Each structure stands twice: as structure tokens, then as C-alpha cells.
């Protein structure tokens, strides 16, 4: 434990430099921008920024990208509260009570409650990473291919079983991701597969192209369909009210802790921030005292619960990414893709080989979340003004940005066409309640999961018995089956709960 604190201090030495603080500021501001704009979200923003980080030191690059992630999480809440328009899917639940409170003339209170709870949630997530990540990594160093495959299986099973979307739809989304990951040259045998007669597909389909289409174009189509009317409440910030609200947050200590715990759980088992915020809101609603004001009318707990869970999930999604090489959310998946491009190998070896990178990132998360809270409060009026630009101007601009982003991945027109196809798929998936995050995750780590499977098979000469050959592997595989089946059995035994149905991404 002591060495963790030492490592963290070492990390602070790396994170707190002029250059890195500056990168945090830039990252957070860009993050708030993509968070505020509907149609552009954290996964897209990070993908767009990715090519610009290739010349950087990996630790600087990850500080920039992760700061953007935090900024986007905060930015999404700004529009939820002031405009009733969620800038990010994960801040949908914040609109339920955040907007009514702001509309009743208390926008500063609503924003401060949201940011305060969000910062608390993020802090819990970072502390968890600080304490547990290196321990998990140390444990995972003993993993061989069968154990790795079992962990992947566990992660994907928990997606299917607990993602909140219909399990078979999640399974289809996940499998499509795996199939897309398999397109191109097979890394083990060197043979070309699944190119469907298109020679350009030999290079494979880049996850950035999929993210641009699925999240960018898909969200954009949804946004025009819903025809948003930005009816803003006043975006003036009353700083005294902000301080008073944040000082009063401990009153909701129980809700804060419970929501952060839900968030951490959903972040580590890849449920993601969106599912976490909905689940936390639902739980808080059930825990609400009898006789108090009903949820949905602007009660503080209704803001605290989704915000704390959203941010603790977003933060703790980096834990499995760093220590196991399994990203806990779509944005974490994009960052992990970045790690691989920078030549790092996500997983337990990072803690041995790339100590500066890992602890620099962890330490930066403490600092950049503080930077984010300050910046987001200071820039609320500015970004609120941005929302007054009519959407018919912003929509084509976002479309062009996504197009250029997809093209610049490998200067290929085919990628642009593919992105458009992914956009249509993303729209259909959203309309039919298929989750998008598993698809992206599967594209990023599909090859690794397949390699682990094939290496395990080589070790056992083709016998599936290897997955039951040691207590550890057996536990992981059985745990996966439990994640897969227990929620279904519980659903059969109990009537459906409508408030948890609507979780997506």
C-alpha cells in the first residue's frame, strides 16, 4: 500500500508540470466543447484528437485525451441542466431533475450540485484506481492465455447480462464488433479474411471510423429527428450560491457514496457511464424518503445520483483498461486504441515497464478533475452562448468534422463511406435499443480476445478443457456464465422494472 502512495507522489511529479497543466486546460476545454455540442461526444472527440497525439510523449498524450474525457463528461451536464438537452448520452438522467431546478430559477444551485457530485464521483474512482489498479495488475501478471480469454469472456458476458439492453441485441452488437475486428490480415496465420472482395479492406476497419459513424453521425441523425428547441434558462453563475451549494453537499453523503459505488461497479464491469447514471437515478428514487418532494421536480438527490455515478463510472473505466487491457467504456476503448498506436501494450505489464506513464496518468486524474470543475464553472456562460447558434448550422459542421476525421485516419475514401454506413447503423441501433459501446469495445479488443483463445487452444491442443484446468480459470469462466444467466433468471422471477429499461450505450 505504501508503495502505491510513493508511486502516486512520483506520478504527481510527472503530472504537475507547466506543459501538462496546459494540456489539461486544452483537453478539458475541448472536452467541454464536444460535450456541449449534441452529436459530438467523448468517444468522437477523443478519436478526433487521437491523430494529433502521435508525435507526443505517451504520458502527455494520455493526459490530453483523458482530460478531454473529463471535460466532455462535465460539458454534457451543462446542456442537460440549462437547456434540457443532454450533450452526452450519459447525462440524460441529469435532465430529469437538473432542468426543473434550473427552470425554477436556481441554475447556479443545479450546476454546482451537478459538478460537486461529479467531482466527488470522479475522486472516488481515482482513489479506487490508486489503491487497487497496481494490485490487480500484479495479480494479472500471472495470467496466461486461458486466464486472459476468461477475463475477456467475463467482461463481455457482463455486458450482455447486465448492460440494460435486451441481451440478444447486445450479443449481436458485440459479435458484429468481433467480426469487424477480424476483417483484414489474420495476425496468427497471416491469411486474409472477411474482405468480401474489397481489396482495400485488407488493412482492416479502424475503430475510429466506427466511432465517428456510430456515435457522431448516428447521434446527429437522432438530434435532428428530435428537433431540439434550445430554451435556455439564465446561464449567469452566482459564485456565492455555488460555494454554498458545494459546502452543503455532504448532506447528501449517503446518496453520494451509494451512487459512486454504483458508478465504480458499472465502470469496472464494462457497463459504462450511461447505464451507471440511469441505474443510480433509479436506485436513488427507490431510496427516497416518503413525504419528500417527488423525483423529477428538481430535487437535489436527483442530480447528485446520476452525476456522481456518471463520473465515477467514467473514471473507474480506466482501471480495467490499465491493469487488464479491457476498457470499461467506449471512450476508454478509444483511449486504449491510442495506447496501442503509441506502442504501449495495455495490461499488467504497463505497471512494470511504463511506471511513469501509469502513475503520471493516475496523478493527472486528480489534478485534471479539479481543473475541469473550475474551468467548467468559469466557462458556462460562454458555452451556453454557443448553444444559441442554430442547430441547422451546427449539424452540417459536425457532419463535415466527422467525415474529415474518418478520412484522416488513413487517407482513405473507403473509410468515409464506411463511416456513413456506420452512421446509418448507429441510428438504427439507437432506435431499436441496441447498445453501441460493446460494438466499439469488441472492435478494439477483438483481436486480443481471439489471440488469447487461439493460444489457449494451442496450449491444450484443441481441448476446451483448458478453461476448466485451474481454479482461477474455472472461477472466471463460471463467473462469466453467472453474469450472463443470473440477470435473465431474475428477470423471469420478477416483474419488469420500467425505470431500468431505458439504459443504453
Amino acid at each position, binding site marked *: 500500500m505504501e508503495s502505491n502512495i510513493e508511486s502516486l507522489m512520483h506520478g504527481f511529479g510527472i503530472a504537475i508540470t507547466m506543459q501538462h497543466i496546459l494540456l489539461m486546460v486544452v483537453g478539458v476545454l475541448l472536452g467541454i466543447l464536444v460535450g456541449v455540442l449534441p452529436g459530438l461526444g467523448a468517444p468522437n472527440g477523443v478519436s478526433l484528437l487521437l*491523430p*494529433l497525439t502521435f508525435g507526443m510523449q505517451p504520458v502527455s498524450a494520455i493526459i490530453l485525451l483523458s482530460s478531454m474525457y473529463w471535460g466532455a463528461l462535465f460539458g454534457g451536464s451543462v446542456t442537460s441542466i440549462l437547456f434540457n438537452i443532454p450533450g452526452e448520452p450519459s447525462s440524460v438522467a441529469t435532465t430529469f431533475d437538473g432542468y426543473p431546478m434550473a427552470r425554477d430559477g436556481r441554475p447556479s444551485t443545479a450546476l454546482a450540485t451537478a459538478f460537486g457530485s461529479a467531482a466527488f464521483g470522479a475522486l472516488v474512482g481515482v482513489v479506487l484506481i490508486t489503491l487497487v489498479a497496481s494490485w490487480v495488475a500484479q495479480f494479472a501478471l500471472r495470467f496466461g492465455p486461458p486466464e486472459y480469454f476468461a477475463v475477456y469472456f467475463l467482461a463481455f458476458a457482463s455486458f450482455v447480462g447486465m448492460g440494460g439492453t*435486451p441481451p*440478444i*441485441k447486445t*450479443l*449481436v452488437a458485440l*459479435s*458484429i464488433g*468481433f*467480426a469487424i475486428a*477480424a476483417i483484414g490480415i*489474420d495476425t*496468427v*496465420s497471416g*491469411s486474409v*479474411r*472477411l*474482405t*468480401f472482395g474489397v481489396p482495400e479492406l485488407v488493412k482492416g476497419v479502424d475503430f475510429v471510423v466506427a466511432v465517428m459513424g456510430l456515435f457522431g*453521425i448516428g447521434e*446527429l*441523425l437522432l438530434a*435532428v*429527428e*428530435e*428537433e431540439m428547441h434550445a430554451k435556455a434558462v439564465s446561464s449567469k453563475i452566482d459564485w456565492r450560491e455555488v460555494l454554498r451549494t458545494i459546502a452543503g453537499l455532504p448532506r447528501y453523503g449517503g446518496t453520494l457514496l451509494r451512487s459512486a459505488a454504483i458508478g465504480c461497479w458499472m465502470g469496472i464491469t464494462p457497463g459504462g457511464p450511461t447505464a451507471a447514471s440511469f441505474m443510480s437515478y433509479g436506485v436513488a428514487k427507490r431510496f427516497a424518503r416518503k413525504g419528500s418532494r417527488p423525483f423529477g421536480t428538481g430535487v437535489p438527490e436527483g442530480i447528485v445520483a446520476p452525476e456522481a455515478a456518471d463520473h465515477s463510472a467514467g473514471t473507474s473505466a480506466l482501471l480495467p483498461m490499465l491493469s487488464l487491457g479491457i476498457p470499461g467504456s467506449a471512450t476508454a476503448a478509444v483511449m486504449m486504441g491510442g495506447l496501442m498506436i503509441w506502442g504501449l501494450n495495455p495490461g499488467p505489464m504497463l505497471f512494470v515497464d511504463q511506471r511513469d506513464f501509469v502513475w503520471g496518468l493516475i496523478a493527472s486524474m486528480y489534478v485534471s478533475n479539479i481543473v475541469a470543475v473550475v474551468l467548467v464553472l468559469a466557462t458556462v456562460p460562454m458555452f451556453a452562448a454557443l448553444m444559441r447558434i*442554430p442547430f*441547422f*448550422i451546427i*449539424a*452540417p*459542421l459536425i*457532419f*463535415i468534422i466527422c*467525415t*474529415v476525421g474518418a*478520412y*484522416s485516419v488513413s*487517407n482513405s*475514401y473507403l473509410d*468515409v*463511406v464506411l463511416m*456513413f454506413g456506420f452512421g446509418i*447503423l448507429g*441510428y*438504427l*441501433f439507437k*432506435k*431499436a435499443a*441496441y447498445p453501441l459501446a460493446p460494438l466499439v469495445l469488441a472492435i478494439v479488443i477483438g483481436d486480443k480476445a*481471439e489471440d488469447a*483463445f*487461439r493460444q489457449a*487452444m*494451442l496450449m491444450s491442443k*484443441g481441448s476446451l478443457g483448458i478453461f476448466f484446468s485451474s481454479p482461477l480459470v474455472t472461477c472466471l469462466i463460471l463467473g462469466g456464465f453467472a453474469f450472463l444467466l443470473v440477470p435473465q433468471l431474475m428477470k423471469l422471477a420478477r416483474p419488469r422494472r420500467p425505470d431500468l429499461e431505458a439504459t443504453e450505450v
Partner: protein
Amino acid sequence: MISQRAIEVTTAVLTGIFGVAVVVSSMEVGIGWGEKGVDAGTFPLIVGSAIALGSLYNLARGVLVGHEIAVSWPALRRVAGLFVPAAVFIALIPSFGMYAASFAYTLATVGWQRKLPPWKTVAVALAVPLFLYVVFEKAFVVTLPHGTLFEMMGF
């Protein structure tokens, strides 16, 4: 308008076709146990089958979904208003290049709304390729497609 049933069925059919294509393609690569262990087509075969079977299930469920409206006429018109010009934009890129296509695309979609005075519309449409040129071509040295037409003219 489009019903929820139509969306469910369309999605399931599309994913199903992809699943079958993956299965067929992976059979050609080779499945099962080869000299180098598990053959390259095996894993795609498994996920392809999962897609195909899952889609079949979703299709069956989708057919049972009620006829409730998923996208109303006005909403569909708005979606088409973004979708159709966007498709044209993408189709224009190979011959006209990113800059000219993005100019035309912005001009058309913003102009179509008739909510901005013409000079503002043109200004926005000019600003887009200019921004792209400065950020990508100059700052980050990423060459965007100039288009075959302009390349023939020597740009």
C-alpha cells in the same frame, strides 16, 4: 412515418445478412483445427453464427412489436433533410474534393433553411473549407482529397 416494427425488422435483417456473409466468408478461409492450431476462419465463424442466430431471434421478436410510431412524418423529413445532402456530399468528395464539396454542402443545407441572410450563408460556407485548410493542410499537414476534377486542372 416509420413504425417501430419496421425499424426492428430492418435492423435484424441487415445484421442477419452481415452474419451470413461472415459465416460464408469464414468457411472459405478455413475452419477447425489446422497445422497452426485453430484456423483463421474459426473465430469469425463463431461470431458470424452468433450474429445470424441472434438476428433471427431479434427478427422474430421484432415482428411481434406493435405498430407504434417510431419516427413521425415531420421527423422523417428532418432526418432526410440531413441524410440526403450528406450522402450527396460524400458522393461528391472523390471528384470535387473535400474543400469544394464541404463548401457546396454547407451552402446548400444552411441556405435551404432560408433563415440566414444570403451573405451570412455564403460566409459560413466559405469559412468551413478555409478552417479545414488551415487546420489540416497547414497546421497538421494532413492532405485532404482535392478531387480528381481539380487535380486535372492542376491543383
